[in-house]
Structures are given as C-alpha cells and as structure tokens.
C-alpha cells in the first residue's frame, strides 16, 4: 500500500510514550493509523482515551491473513469528540495469542469483541461474556476466516441434500 508517514504531535506522543511498541505510524488517503505490538495494544488505546480524549470507539474489527505467521490483525477505530478526528490502531498476532479485551475501556467493545470471536475465533482475555453473537451457538468454524469458502459450502450442501450440481 502506498502509504505516507504520519507525522504530527499525536504520532510524536505515541512514539515518545511507547517507543519500541509502536511499530509504524502511517497514513493512507489522509487517514492515519498506527501499528503496535500485540502486548501493548490495550495500553496504547487506554493512553489515547485518557491523555488524548479519544473517548469513542467507533469500531473494532479484525482481518485474517492465513499465509502469515501472525495471521490476525485487530483494528480499533477511535474517534475524539474534542479534536474531531479519527485514528486507527492495529496490531498483528498469531492464532495462539489472546489479546486483552477492551471491554473495560469502552463498553461498546463488549458486543464488537463477541462478533470478532464469532467470525474469526479470536479469544479476548478478560471479556465478561465471550460467546457467539450472530451465528448459531452450535456453529462449527469461523465464517470470516479466509479458508471458509462460501461457494464450496453452497456446492457441498446442494450435493449432499439435493444430490445435484449447484451450478454456482
């Protein structure tokens, strides 16, 4: 991605406060984002909320890169009413890592983390009620992981249940 460096007072504060834990601060199409180490992710978000008035969690979501060792990417989109600006904080970690839940920082994270667990199978440490939210409770697998192929699912269902080719 053709990113530019994100250099302003806020990115400076992040670098001086967390030093090695901030892996990069970049921007794309004028939208800034920072990548942190997975262990410091929670602290960076708390720092932004408490010291820089990012008091609104717009969204929390994840991405899956199955070919990489650190296959999951967690993205928090924060908004500050005071400064009227958004930043994205990201972190990459392997499947075995359990990131610390943000539900003690923003109440909105409760359902958003349940949705991420439901869709990607990422376990959040310290979440009060981590269970499926959109999929049925007995669902096998995590739909938004890249290895789940909806065309294959459709074809195998049609073949098993109707005994014909699905034509998809």
């Amino acid at each position, binding site marked *: *991605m*053709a*990113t530019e460096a994100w250099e302003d007072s806020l990115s400076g504060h992040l670098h001086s406060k967390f030093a090695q834990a901030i892996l990069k601060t970049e921007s*794309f*199409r004028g*939208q800034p*984002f920072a990548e942190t180490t997975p262990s410091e992710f929670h602290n960076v978000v708390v720092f932004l909320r408490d010291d820089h008035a990012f*008091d*609104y*969690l*717009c*969204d929390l*979501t994840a*991405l899956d890169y199955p070919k990489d060792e650190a296959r999951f990417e967690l*993205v928090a*989109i924060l908004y500050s*009413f005071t400064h*009227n600006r*958004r930043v*994205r904080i990201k972190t990459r970690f392997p499947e075995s890592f359990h990131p610390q839940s943000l539900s003690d920082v*923003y*109440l*909105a994270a*409760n*359902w*958003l983390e349940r*949705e991420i667990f439901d*869709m990607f199978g990422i376990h959040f440490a310290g979440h009060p009620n981590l269970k*499926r*939210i*959109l*999929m*049925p409770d007995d669902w096998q697998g995590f*739909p*938004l992981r890249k290895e*789940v192929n*909806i*065309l294959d699912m459709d074809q195998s269902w049609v073949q098993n249940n109707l005994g014909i080719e699905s034509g998809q």
Partner: protein
Amino acid sequence: MESVNHLETSEMVLNMGPQHPSTHGVLRLVLKLDGERVKAVECVIGYLHRGVEKIGENRTYTQFAPYVDRMDYISAVSNGLGYCLAVEGLIGVEAPPRAQIVRVIFAELNRIASHLLWLGTSALDLGAMTALFYCLREREEVLKIFENYCGARLTTHAFRIGGLQYELHDTFEAETRAFSEMFKKRLDEYDQLLTNNPIWIERLKGVGILTAEECKSWGVSGPMIRAAGLAWDLRKAQPYSGYDQFDFDIPTRQGADSYDRYLVRIDEMRQSLRIIDQALEKIPSGAIMAKVPKVLKPPPGEVYVSIEAPKGELGYYIVSDGSLHPYRLRVRPPSFINLASLEKMAVGALVADVVAIIGTIDIVLGEVDR
C-alpha cells in the same frame, strides 16, 4: 415450624420474541423479571444474519453495491451513499457536483422516510394507532419519488460508484417541492397529535435514560446521542457529499430519555426539509458520473468512511489488496452498536417500558444481523 415468607417474590425469566410485533423484526430478548421490574436483559440476535461482509469478499466492488441496500432496508439510500463514498475514497474519485447535490436530496428524503416509519411503528407499539396511518401516508409520497427516479421503492440502489446512473426524471423537482410543502404542515399535525399528548408523555418521559457519557462509552450515535445533549452530527462534524453548502441546525435535547429522542427525530425531519428546499434551488447542471474505470481495481490500501445515516454513524472500512474483490469489507452498523446499550437502559424499567425503549433506539434487524 419452618417460617415461610409468602410475600417473597421469585425471579422469572420471560422470553420476548423473536416473533413479537414490538421487537421490530426478529429480535429476541431474555428478560429476567422481579414482578414487573426488569432485573437483567440479554439480547439474542443473528436470526437475520446473511453474512454480508463475507459476501462482500466474494463479489467485485460494483457487484456488491446492491447488497448494502438490504442491510438497513428502511434507509437503503443512505447505505448506498456510504458505500459509494467509501469506494470512491479508495479509488480517489469524487462524484461531480450535480451528483453530490442530488445524492443529498435523496439521502434527506430517505431520512424523512426512515424517521416516519420509526414514528409510526413505535407509536403503534405504545398504543397510538392513528400515527401509523398518517406516517405511512406521508412516507408513500417519498417512496413514489424514489420509484419514479429509479424504479424501486425500498431497495433502491439509487447511486453508482462515481455518481448516479440515471439523470433526474422530468417531474422530480415538482414532486419534491410538492412533498416538501405538504409535509411541513403534516409535521405540525404530528406535533398536535403526539407531542403534548399526556399518554405519550407519560409513556416516554424519563424512560430509557442514557447520558452523554454513557452514550460515548457504549458507542451510541445518531439521534440517541443528540437527545443526550451532544450536538454531534457527521454532516456537520466531517461534511461529505457537499453538506457544508447547506444551512441547517443540529437538533439536540438534554433529557437523554425516550421522549427527547422522539423530539430530536421530529426536529430532524424539519431540518431535512430545510436542506431539501435549499438543494432544490441549486442543483447544478453538468455530468452525473465521474470518470470511473469499467473494471474497478482499487490500489492496495484501506479507508474508513462514515456518514450520518438516519440511525447513526454508518461506516464502511474497506481493505483492498489490489485485486477485483475487497480483501475485507467491514460495515460499522449503527443499529447493532446502539442496540447493545439496551442491556443497560432496560435494567430497572418496567416490562412495558422495554417496548418503548426498543422503539426509540430505532433498530432495524437487517442491519443488526447483517
């Protein structure tokens, strides 16, 4: 002899929905009750989950556009606007001025249609049956304008990435002006019908309070946060599609309860009319489509673009890996996040108040479940 206190109550678990008229679709609530009081509530959702985000990864950018209409199907135009703006942001294209103004008019008409359906159905939940008929009568006029423009009433797919597919139809201006004239008077009638109605006030005042600080922490947006006194509207805070050219106010209230959410939505419809009236005066001539390649292949990158949909902040977070399909297409659904706060607001309320609170959150399950 063992003493038994016969006055002691026991907790009762009541299942409400998913097939219940006042849950506005397939929302299921598990209520823990102490008599008529709610001690705890759990929302069970997902009955309408279609995997919109997964479908997005399997379709091209253009193919996915009609799918967004089926999330918040009450305000399909706003969904489409958000999606088009997000993809345009990713490929670095801006719609021409004419298309932008026309988009604003349709988005505001849709806001009115959405608020009207909300008003009619949530009034019906509280026993005010008359309002529903009036609201649907007015909403019909908006839907007719949509139908005359693009042939569809609900899932309109009115916009295209880069602008509009269709030029405005000949009678568009006359129809919209007539609607605006008529609707101003009708809004006053709603005021007379409900605003000072003692039963209406009794049912809504002080019910479902969520303060501004709580709204921020719960991620609540839209009319709910404005009813808590925070004048935050993305059309003003981070203007898109030319909203900065228009003169309008952000209605706010201080009570943070269901009644104030009702008042905010009524005022928002008045402001929408102001925007529509101004926009009709200055629709520029010119092209309706920007130069967009037939096959969309955005460069690797990511954007988060959000708009002020009738229900709150609707955002699209799109990550492109440079191929024909989005690598990840995340929708930030206002209804889903607003609904989460019900688990806080309903505690301590009466069962009948839960109906009022769900009503004034204004959810649509198509968007909650996606």
